[in-house]
């Protein structure tokens, strides 16, 4: 390829990377929820919808955190219990229990959470990468957000949706 094209492409990339130009994208919108004793968040754009618990069908030969599949308006979607996935004690579903349907590309799955908290706007500068101990390919933690007096764990939806059995 010739130098001219390269120049143009380089210029375009520079523009994209320029922080001043991307000022609008500086804020990340997250949705917070509680599983066990901790509050987690996921980027709002990865959430397809949030529904109240409905009936599901067990699927054999799966780990215990895969509760089964459920019918979301004609689509069959896997249901994953985040408590079990995170190695916590199972809990009974109650009025606050929700299924968060998350997607990444073509992958869609529902996740059982204990309760929702709130939608959060967070400056990107307030987000740190996942701590050393919890980073790596398999880690479900994407980063840690700091907000006043609390710390928010941002989950990596891609990894959550990866089949690991």
């Amino acid at each position, binding site marked *: 390829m010739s130098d*001219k094209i390269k120049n143009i492409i380089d210029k375009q990339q520079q523009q994209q990377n320029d922080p001043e130009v991307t000022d609008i994208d500086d804020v990340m919108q997250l949705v917070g929820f509680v599983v066990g004793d901790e509050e987690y968040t996921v980027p709002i754009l990865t959430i397809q919808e949030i529904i109240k618990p409905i009936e599901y*069908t067990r*699927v*054999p*030969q799966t780990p215990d955190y895969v509760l*089964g599949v459920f*019918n979301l308006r004609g689509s*069959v979607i*896997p249901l994953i219990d985040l408590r079990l996935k995170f190695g916590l004690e199972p809990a009974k579903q109650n009025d606050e229990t929700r299924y968060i349907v998350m997607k990444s590309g073509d992958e869609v799955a529902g996740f059982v959470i204990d309760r929702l908290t709130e939608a959060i706007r967070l400056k990107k500068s307030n987000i740190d990468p996942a701590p050393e101990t919890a980073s790596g390919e398999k880690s479900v933690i994407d980063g840690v957000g700091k907000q006043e007096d609390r710390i928010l764990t941002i989950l990596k939806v891609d990894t959550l949706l990866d089949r690991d059995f």
Partner: protein
Amino acid sequence: MDEFQEILQDFLVESFELIEQLDQDLVELENTPEDLELLNRIFRVAHTIKGASSFLNFDVLTRLTHHMEDVLNRARKAEIILTPDIMDVVLTSIDMMKAKLYFIRDNGTDEGSEDIEEIVAKLDAVSDGKPVDEVSVPETPKEEPAAAAEPEPEPVASESEEDVDYSDMSENEIEDEIERLLKMRQEEDKARRAAKIAAGEAVPEAPQIVDEEKDEPKPAPEPAKEEPKAPEPKQESAPAPKPAPTPKPTPAAAPKKEASKAPAKAPAAGGGGGASVEQTIRVDVRRLDHLMNLIGELVLGKNRLIKINDDVEERYEGEEFLEELNQVVSIVSLVTTDLQIAVMKTRMLPIGKVFNKFPRMIRDLSRELGKKIELEISGEDTELDKSIVEEIGDPLVHIIRNSCDHGIEGIEDRVAKGKSETGTIGLKAYNEGNHIVIEITDDGKGLNADTLKDIAISKNVINEKEADNMGDKEAFTLIFRPGFSTAKTVTNVSGRGVGMDVVKTNIEKLNGIIDIDSEIDKYTKIKLKIPLTLAIIQALLVGVQEEYYAIPLASVLETVRISTDEIYTVENRSVMRLRDEVLPLVHLADIFEVDRVFDGSEHTYVVVLGLAESKIGVIVDTLVGQEEIVIKSMGEYLKGMDGIAGATIRGDGGVTLIVDVAALMQMAKDIKARPAIGQGVGGGAAKAKTKPSDYVVMLVDDSKTDRSIMRSALTPLGVTLVEATDGVDALNILKAGEHQFDAMLIDIEMPRMDGYSLAAEIKKYNRYKNLPLIAVTSRTTKADRMRGVEVGMVEYITKPYSPEYLMNVVKRNINLTMEA
């Protein structure tokens, strides 16, 4: 450029269709060399391809077809007679032509593909009436006056353009260059169009074909439209120094993608190139698939509507509006069914599409093997789903090759056996209910069950004991085992022990059934029974404990109700006798890890499944019924789970899993008879308990007063209490599974079922092995206590008791479970 690609696309689709017809016609021609009509048709095909390829500057292909055409033309004018030797040459050249077309499809050009000089020389020799083997390859291939005679706009121009060096040009110069090239292209196109029209008039021998070409509806929804167009990005990036070799009329990359779709589309067009012109319209297969998906949704909706209608009917019996509702529901369901059939039909192709290639194959094989074989085809109009047509080709090829090689004997052998010299292979297709049956018969030497067993033993496919237990039919199925071959030597045609295994795998994939029948020295008959369509299927719904599963009805041979005494254990596996067969059995609960909470029943249902050549009986608790289901994928996350083919949505909106019969049979092999069931992890069996009310204790006593006393004693604990009035009642509550009990307080003397029997019943179930049963009774003798221990009670409280004592015992016991 666009136009060029569209033309190329059309050209490829059309050519492949024509060639398919050509093969069949040629073989037919060999048998009836005088058939002028047939000869004319073949000639026209060759001519059409030649004409089209010359427009598109495929010089090599043009040259090849031109020489083919020469030969055929002379034959048409009765100047030469088509002997088998000449046919060989013609057929080879057609193969070459196919190879060229594939090459064009993949590369967008025919330059640099296989050399054609040898075959061209042979064709020339044949058309000159020389014997084939005297042919030598001439040295100068390029300048051929014959090819040049055809209307070829500018075959060389493109070559020279390529060499222009763009790298030194300035932006302006490049703009100019692009301008120039574009202009040139437009002129080229113009010239080509003109040439096309001219050709239409200049070829009087084949006016029909040209007309057909024009009349054919232009495939508007061509995938080419959706593809990113090659030239567009080029124009946008015009200031860039090198606009690449775009203006060249044979772009390498762009047509590749589109062209690869051509063969997929070609069969959908329905024999367009045949003798009779059908009223057809080409539709992108993806559109049909989408339509099929939508119909699937509709079918689910219909199922749901019917279910709701039933519920409403029950609840509002006798109401007037019911009749109206009934009518609407039945109309909707009727129309949906019709619509489904209609859409299914749009995807249907005659199986002749597949059968067409076999006459040629048989011809080649019989020449190669030195046998005389005749192919009898019937039922080629039988239709089945496109996806199945695509899958069925390979298995049939393997079966037919096998029949030719192993089935039909050599000529001498046949004569010695008093059969006619010519062996016959029959290929027959017909409908049978929701299935299509394809029968392949040969009148060859048949299968010898004993020989098959011996070979299987020598090749370690089975052991001697297995062989002894095998009936003839089972022995025949040995030929489908991998690594099994009856051929003593591996030939070109078969003998590697792979082919029939492929047959089995492919037929299994289609949920089909294989049946073999044979008699020594008389015949071998292989019957393939395949469901008509894959997307919407009939299924048998079965229940295991609280779960339901759908089994594709295509694989269900029958269902039987048997008593548990009829289940025998042979070598650690459950079997039953079904008429004169021994059928291996497996419990669906064991396959799918369902906790067997209650199964005391003396009778059970067995669903007999058949797939490809094997059979198995699956024990289920209930048979729910037959239902039309739509297969839905469970997404990437749960794709390919063992034993599950997918899921479907039922009338009540719930999800039911579809059993993958092939996988189930595989899994069944690893399951021993009645294994000791471990404490399974049932859906929601163990939930964490955070507060006292999460604990559930059942109070079983026939006296209301006693129950009240217990209740008041335990209320301070804050646990949830459930009452039962006697043993039967308690057992029912337990089975209902509404609560997960942590302990039971059981009175001993109760009507219907006493406390001892209740405890004994409960302890029968694995699931409740650890459930603490506490006797609360006024029986105080030692014998009574002993009996309590025997049936599995952990504590023995005698009435009267203090509330604190009862509370402590219960507390201790439910804590105990938590630790365990």
